[in-house]
């Protein structure tokens, strides 16, 4: 069962993403900011990381950069969850090593369809 790390400071978004993933048969681990996300990531292996960009303590871009430094996350897909559809944010994400992005708002179908592009 693919295991996905969900990082978002908003409880409702995190719950919703996690719930959607679980109902589709994925296993999820949650974190409420980049720092916690990094700690959780270091404690295990994941098939995918979905992270918000704007978060307190450590933002998603930094999290992504930190994750890419870890050998076990070198090839792991990392999706940035963002409402900022501007090219700038996407480029910053890519530069930090993100695989792709998921533009909020999204519905569960969109979320699962996008995940299918990076997790088999």
């Amino acid at each position: 069962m693919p295991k996905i790390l969900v990082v978002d400071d908003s409880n409702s978004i995190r719950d919703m993403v996690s719930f959607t993933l679980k109902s589709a048969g994925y296993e999820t681990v949650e974190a409420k900011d980049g720092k916690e996300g990094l700690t959780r990531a270091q404690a295990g292996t994941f098939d995918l990381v979905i992270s918000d960009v704007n978060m307190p303590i450590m933002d998603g871009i930094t999290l992504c950069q930190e994750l890419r430094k870890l050998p076990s996350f070198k090839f792991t897909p990392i999706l940035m969850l963002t409402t900022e559809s501007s090219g700038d944010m996407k480029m910053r994400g890519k530069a930090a090593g993100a695989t792709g992005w998921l533009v909020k708002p999204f519905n569960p179908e969109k979320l699962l369809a996008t995940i299918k592009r990076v997790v088999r």
Partner: protein
Amino acid sequence: MSVDLSQFIPNFLAESFEGLELMESSLLNLEQGDDETMNAIFRAAHSIKGGAGTFGFDHVTEFTHLVETLLDEMRNGQRAIKQDDVELLLVSVDCMRMLIEAIRDEGDYDKDKIDETYQLLLVALKGKEPDLLPTTNNSTDKSVTSTDGMTEWNISFIPEHHLVQTGNDPLLLFNALAELGELKVEANCNNLPSILDADPQELYLSWNLTLHSKNASEALIREVFEWVEDECELTITQNKPAECDVESANLEEKLTASQPADSNDTANLDESLTVEKVAENTQQEKQVIKAPTKSTSKTKVDAGSIRVGVDKVDSLINLVGELVITQSMLSELGSDFDLSKVERLTSGLEQLLQNTKELQESVMRIRMLPISFAFNRFPRLIHDLGKKTGKDIELVLKGEQTELDKTVMEQISDPLVHLVRNAVDHGIETAEVRAANGKATKGKIVLDAYHQGGNIVIEIKDDGGGINRDAVYNKAVEKGIVDAGTSLTDNQVFELIFEPGFSTAQEISDISGRGVGMDVVKKNIQALGGRIQIDSTPGEGSTFKVNLPLTLAILDGQLVKVGSETYIVPLITIVESLQTKAELINRVSGDMVLYRLREDNVPIIPIYKLFGIASDADADSLEEALLVVVEADGQKVGLLVDDLLAQQQVVIKSLDENYQQVEGISGATILGDGSVAMILDIPGLIELAMQNANHRLSSKTHSPSAEGAMI
């Protein structure tokens, strides 16, 4: 698949309200704040927008998007932080709150106000229109005008070597492409280095893809490669409409060659991939998710929900654990009991008492919230009132961490607002007046909360002009509340402002002074089992002190005995208990008996008479009788009782729900011995006794013969 997300809506709403409060308080503190303040405001708006979009509340998303854009410009330094913008953002926060409240209550909102603010935001952001509409990512829906014939697309995909190191997997890209139509994949292995030179973490292949599709467009194809377009050379060319070539591509052997050896994501490439999905199928698979806005029964937020810190729940679990241990100890003791075990029984029971007490406190703590929840709205209120009245006012909040029962908090909120409005409107003088009196031009209002003897005290203190005793007195005379010439103490005069219909405002302003204020405030506070006191010094300001029980479910009570009955007097109402002395008893007229208590004359209410029960004591002798002096509505009375019993906390059971409302009784409780005791409603009791006295008085004057009918 369809996922019902409506269960997360209450969570989203609660979070949004928190976000809005944070936005509001941070906006008000922007001057003192740093970059992080602005970032926090932005994040809050951002989260609300994201959540609203996810749950399909598009009107919230659309509105919040403008707010977010404005905040983003301020955050980036593109826009100077100006007071006008801050005001606009504050109004926007109100609008967002209104929208979200409408979702919560499934009610309507003031659309004009929203539209007006929306326009103002647009004006503020002018020049930015192209980016204004929220990006709704429905690219799969905006299907290209379908032609009858198939279109053939040739795609040349030459990825950079490091492509897989960002977690992208070409195979999955091709999968996505295959959903658009019939896909033929050809790998180009020409650039494969020798096995010795190859870096297992790099990708050396490139591909030629042929897509036969009815409704693919270049945009749709590019979207598939969206994440990798900067890391590859991508050429997309359209051939003439062609017949669909039904030929499946087998990728197996070609892809295995490119296997990055230790890559997690590309480890399973040897499984064969047969690409023959047709676009129509995917269209059919798509299910429409039920819009959360329409699932009425589920979106309704449970108004009774409460968010509790984990520490509180943990302490509960811990206590329950101890209780279980005590219980098992006691039951073991009871199974084979003899007198030698009495000591252990006693200690076991003591432990049980301790457990119960702690458990009770712990459970009560769950309902407790810091009073900052109620205080948080005041910075904004003061800001707005200051603007409206042109007064410069500083608000100081103290004791914000003082915890209070959630229900009490909800119900005290409005009275507090009224008191603060009053302080601004009637208390604080204008800057000119203050300067003339040698005071700082900036007025000050202090809100303070603290615990005092099992109660919570909330103080609203202003450094204004104080209550004008003469103005209040004259007004009261004019309104017929007191007779001209009555001599009253300062406190009695101040109490007059709580009389129904009283208002000293020279003109009725739209802030306060509608004449329905203070009496309602007092009633609300009393309904919570609390009381309000005024302290005021001319020229120095006034303090309104609100005394509230910590919770509504439990009451600190004094048990008293009257005849064979036990009653409970709320401790908060008791001024003192005393034994009467004959020389201080004053029979005024007929049944009305007054007791001289220092400077006051306190009417004595014999409870046995009021409730018509037999008393132990000699009914006629008031000498050396027990008197419990209680106070409500600024009126002291002495309750005549037979005996004072213990003081204890009692759990309030509603008489309304279990029986019916009874005058003079506010509820009931069950005592340790299993008997039921009534809790006295002191304000009600006083009113009842006064009515009876007046009734007697009037019936005496008008028809002396009816005297016998009275109690």
